[in-house]
């Protein structure tokens, strides 16, 4: 038997924008086991709900993570709205949908860039992030923020978009769609990129289901499951077909995410065409009492929000199950048997968001 050795990976690592630590048990160059240890970004945000006003907590919920910030605000607001039986005006539901899809575009482009960087393909990283700046400019114009927006509130949204703005967004989408093509070609056709991604970290559909994979990770293994089909916000009125791929390897995960960017452009276009006129928020009176679960589809997969309220302005318990939490077990499984050199790439293909996971 080859000699076993343990290589520490992280928490500070060039490939990872966020700290996570793994102890990799190696036999020669092959990983036999990966033992994660976490907690480097734990802040205790769930606990903070007990000392913050439930309306004020929206801002904390958005700072669970800076990449999927809009979604966290949305998930929290939806849950509290359900408890309080608040009917959100249709225009607000559409606006939420548009911002949510814009978040997905920005998050997936960010991931594509990091993936290219992990392979050492610097120019592709720069190209992806250059394209991403366009959607950030639209965020800046509509909300005033580039990564943290604070536009959600209990009962609706805080800012409206006029027709000129909606047109500017759809125009930007059309432009970005064109510019995405050469980038997508580099990821999907380039031989070097292909040789790094094809057949790496294969996850079969059964395994994915068994281990509880979610989001693009699950869909890349051929399971057509997308929480957006539940029809929260305005998704029930839009046409949506989950993007899937059959192979379940790293290449498939890359392909699914690239196609989802296109799907998001399409959803933004549909929503901008259908958006009804009307108010963007309703006043909310009183305090929540009761409990509720909601699920939404974040860029990284299904996120679950739970709120238990006691009729005062402080909420008893807020619980958040993030997509990365459920994607870590399949990742650890994938790491077994891979080469040490592929570890950073494999970790990246699940699109880890440690800050969400540890809160």
């Amino acid at each position: 038997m080859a000699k076993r050795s343990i290589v520490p990976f992280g928490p500070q690592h060039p490939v990872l924008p966020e700290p996570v630590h793994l102890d990799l048990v190696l036999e020669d160059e092959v990983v036999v086991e990966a033992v994660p240890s976490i907690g480097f970004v734990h802040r205790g945000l769930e606990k903070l709900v007990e000392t913050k006003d439930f309306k004020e907590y929206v801002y904390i919920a958005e700072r669970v993570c800076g990449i999927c910030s809009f979604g966290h605000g949305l998930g929290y607001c939806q849950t509290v709205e359900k408890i309080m039986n608040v009917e959100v005006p249709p225009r607000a539901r559409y606006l939420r949908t548009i911002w949510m899809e814009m978040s997905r575009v920005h998050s997936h482009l960010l991931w594509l860039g990091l993936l290219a960087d992990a392979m050492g393909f610097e120019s592709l990283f720069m190209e992806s992030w250059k394209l991403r700046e366009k959607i950030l400019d639209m965020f800046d114009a509509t909300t005033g923020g580039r990564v943290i927006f604070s536009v959600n509130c209990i009962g609706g949204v805080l800012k409206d978009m006029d027709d000129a703005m909606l047109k500017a967004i759809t125009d930007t989408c059309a432009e970005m769609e064109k510019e995405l093509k050469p980038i997508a070609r580099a990821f999907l056709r380039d031989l070097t990129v292909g040789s790094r991604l094809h057949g790496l970290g294969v996850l079969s559909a059964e395994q994915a289901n068994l281990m509880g994979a979610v989001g693009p990770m699950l869909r890349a293994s051929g399971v057509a499951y997308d929480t957006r089909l539940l029809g929260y916000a305005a998704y029930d009125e839009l046409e949506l077909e989950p993007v899937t791929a059959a192979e379940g390897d790293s290449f498939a995960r890359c392909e699914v995410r690239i196609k989802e960017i296109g799907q998001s452009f399409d959803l933004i276009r549909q929503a901008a065409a259908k958006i009804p006129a009307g108010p963007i928020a309703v006043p909310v009176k009183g305090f929540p009492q009761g409990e509720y679960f909601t699920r939404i589809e974040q860029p990284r997969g299904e996120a679950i929000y739970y709120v238990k309220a006691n009729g005062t302005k402080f909420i008893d318990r807020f619980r958040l199950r993030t997509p990365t939490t459920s994607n870590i077990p399949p990742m650890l499984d994938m790491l077994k048997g891979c080469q040490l050199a592929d570890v950073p790439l494999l970790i990246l293909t699940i699109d880890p968001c440690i800050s969400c996971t540890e809160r």
Partner: protein
Amino acid sequence: MKKLAKSPWLLHYDASSCNGCDIEVLACTTPKYDIERFGIINTGDPFQADILLITGGVNSQCEQVVKQLYEQMPNPKVVVAVGICACTGGVFKDCYNIKGGIDTVIPVDVYVPGCAARPQAIIDGVVKALEILEEKRQGYREHAGKGES
């Protein structure tokens, strides 16, 4: 700003932030903002870094890591705290395991406020840090000169 004599290398670490400022730090290195025009390279290696760009309010778990990274960096070095939670703890100030600001753990030279800090502000902070770095270097040189005589 005075002429730069050296190409300072940059190290980025996330000490319990929300990621918002981290992706803005990364965005600074990409074509639109491009801090590489100051000769800066984003390195992952503390032993080769001159500037530490650090975000987040520091929790008990990463405190050791932050100290270690700071010690591993060669002198002279500057620390830039990016984002309001790195400056004072910000929104996370009341959290039970947040120390509240980078300066509770290591000395900070430049504070960049904002939640999230905008790339323009981060670049401004880095440029300030370059000046401080040059001053510190000068100090070291004089110190070394005295040692010789």
